[in-house]
């Protein structure tokens, strides 16, 4: 804390690179938190395991005060990079970053590094989830026979990018297809999400997608009813081995690797990262275990190429952020 020394110079000494992450839900939420945790582990493996990179995590920090304490604590303990993995941690990050100018911080979802306020040791990151949403939308339109598609969102206004992109993707392929969006009003109400899936199916939907950790309930229902599910954020195939067709995966590994490189070069912040298809931050994975029409795969690949080359801009609104945690 404030009384302790301001952390050692970042990554200067020869030891392992030390990363700490503070996240609102659990490392196994199969959504926002897990996507980052898995990416960190991947980077760690890449770098050569525990000896090269150490990961410390605080999960379940849904209370911002707790997260704030954890962020400060990690900074004081001399971690090289402290990742505040939640949009709601913004205040805390800047406050601590001000006090520990030698420590590097990362904050997402955001594009604000605080540079305009003279803060130099904060990275920002976010996902352009509408890109994946768009591609999933294209896939959904191709898969749907009834031309009715259901979307299960958490709280209206949240996961907006993904859902907007998705709707755009569907309508680009099938302008007359119907996309029914419903919200459960919660991020973690699996019971209601499951029922929402039932409702969509009964209302004729034959392809479903959804966001936040609550979707596990819905995937179970899709699985039981043999209705296609399009995943986002983390790998959800294990939940619906027969029905999850694609997954938009947040791959933070490149972002983290780049941050580490910058930090080791003495640059402690200032960059705002965006996960896109173009920079391999977003990936679309097809479920290898089920048979998918080549046509569909082809359309998805084409959509990704179009996005990369800028032919398609899945952004509907003048917004460039999402925060489906």
């Amino acid at each position: 804390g404030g009384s302790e020394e301001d952390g050692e110079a970042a990554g200067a000494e020869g030891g392992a690179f030390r990363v700490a992450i503070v996240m609102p839900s659990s490392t196994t939420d199969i959504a926002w938190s897990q996507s980052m945790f898995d990416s960190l582990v991947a980077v760690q493996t890449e770098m050569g395991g525990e000896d090269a990179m150490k990961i410390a995590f605080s999960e379940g920090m849904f209370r911002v005060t707790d997260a704030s304490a954890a962020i400060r604590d990690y900074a004081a303990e001399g971690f090289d990079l402290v990742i505040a993995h939640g949009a709601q941690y913004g205040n805390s990050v800047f406050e601590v970053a001000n006090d520990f100018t030698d420590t590097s911080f990362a904050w997402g979802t955001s594009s604000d590094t605080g540079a305009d306020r003279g803060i130099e040791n904060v990275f920002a990151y976010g996902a352009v989830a509408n890109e994946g949403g768009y591609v999933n939308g294209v896939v959904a339109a191709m898969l749907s026979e009834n031309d009715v598609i259901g979307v299960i969102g958490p709280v209206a206004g949240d996961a907006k990018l993904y859902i907007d992109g998705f709707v755009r993707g569907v309508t680009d392929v099938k302008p007359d297809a119907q996309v029914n969006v419903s919200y459960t009003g919660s991020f973690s109400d699996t019971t209601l999400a499951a029922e929402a899936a039932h409702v969509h199916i009964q209302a004729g939907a034959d392809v479903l997608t959804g966001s936040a950790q609550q979707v596990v309930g819905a995937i179970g229902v899709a699985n039981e009813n043999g209705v296609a599910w399009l995943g986002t954020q983390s790998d959800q195939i294990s939940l619906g081995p027969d029905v999850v067709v694609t997954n938009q995966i947040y791959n933070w590994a490149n972002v983290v690797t780049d941050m580490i490189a910058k930090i080791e070069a003495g640059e402690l912040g200032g960059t705002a990262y965006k996960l896109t298809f173009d920079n391999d931050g977003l990936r679309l994975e097809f479920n290898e275990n089920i048979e998918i029409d080549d046509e569909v795969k082809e359309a998805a690949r084409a959509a990704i190429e179009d996005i990369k080359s800028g032919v398609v801009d899945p952004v509907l609104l003048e917004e460039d952020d999402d925060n489906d945690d």
Partner: protein
Amino acid sequence: MFDELFTITTLIGILHSCVRLATPYLLASLGETFGQRSGVLNLGVDGIMLMGAFFAFYVVFEGHNLWVGVLAAIAVGILMGLLKAFVSVTMQSLQGISGIGLYLFGLGLSSLLFKTLIGSVEGVSGFRQLPIPLLADIPGIGHILFNHNILVYLAYLMVPVSWFVINRTTLGLKIRAVGHNPEAADTLGVSVNGVRYTTMMIGGALAAVAGASLSIGLQNVFQENMTNGLGFIAVALVYFGSWRTAGVLGGSLLFSLVNALQLWVQALAIPVPSEIAVMMPYIMTIVVLAFTARQIQKPAALARSYERGE
């Protein structure tokens, strides 16, 4: 714009959703009803549900039969019930607060076990939809009532069973007496604590099955805190139902009906703001109760521990 809502298919769909959605609430509230009728308030239902959900899931995940999963849930539910009984009955603690303790314990332990024993969110194949022959073919009603998985039927079966146990058995008579006047029961040689231990075990078992109905019936996954406070709603519904099994059934159905309705309204893109829609079940439950609240005597000894006058 509401026309869509009133088509036969939609109405059937809404009622079908309502019946299914009510399952966990019904099981858990019936269990809580036993406890409250005997004078014990258990706010820890949610924790027991989570433990039940986890153990049922884990057993099935490890490749065992679904019914073994249900039995595992019942066993762990009974254990949790015993723990609550020990703290509230034997140690005579403040019941509201010990329930919160039990909730935290169940929430923490189920997540902890999940992390250590399974480690990632996985799916299993749970109870399948089991249309009841003949009955399921009745138009409309058949789909609404007789096209569900077996735990759903079990939940509804528990309504008359609970009624019968409470009103027609010697145990039920003791439960009612102990909940209303434990001293009187005691002077007739009824073991007040014994009865309360029993109802806590029954309540625990039912709550745990409610949890199992989520993890191996309706969703077929386990996730940390997957009940998301459902158990607290279940406790509230006991008050809604005025400690009567039929009232609890009514409460569960009402709450689920409004929930089903709001999901359908959203899914059919009827322009009702979802922000309002998602509040409706909670608001309606309060409003309906406020208008119908009959002054039914609550179990007079509710939330009071009993100690012979020494």
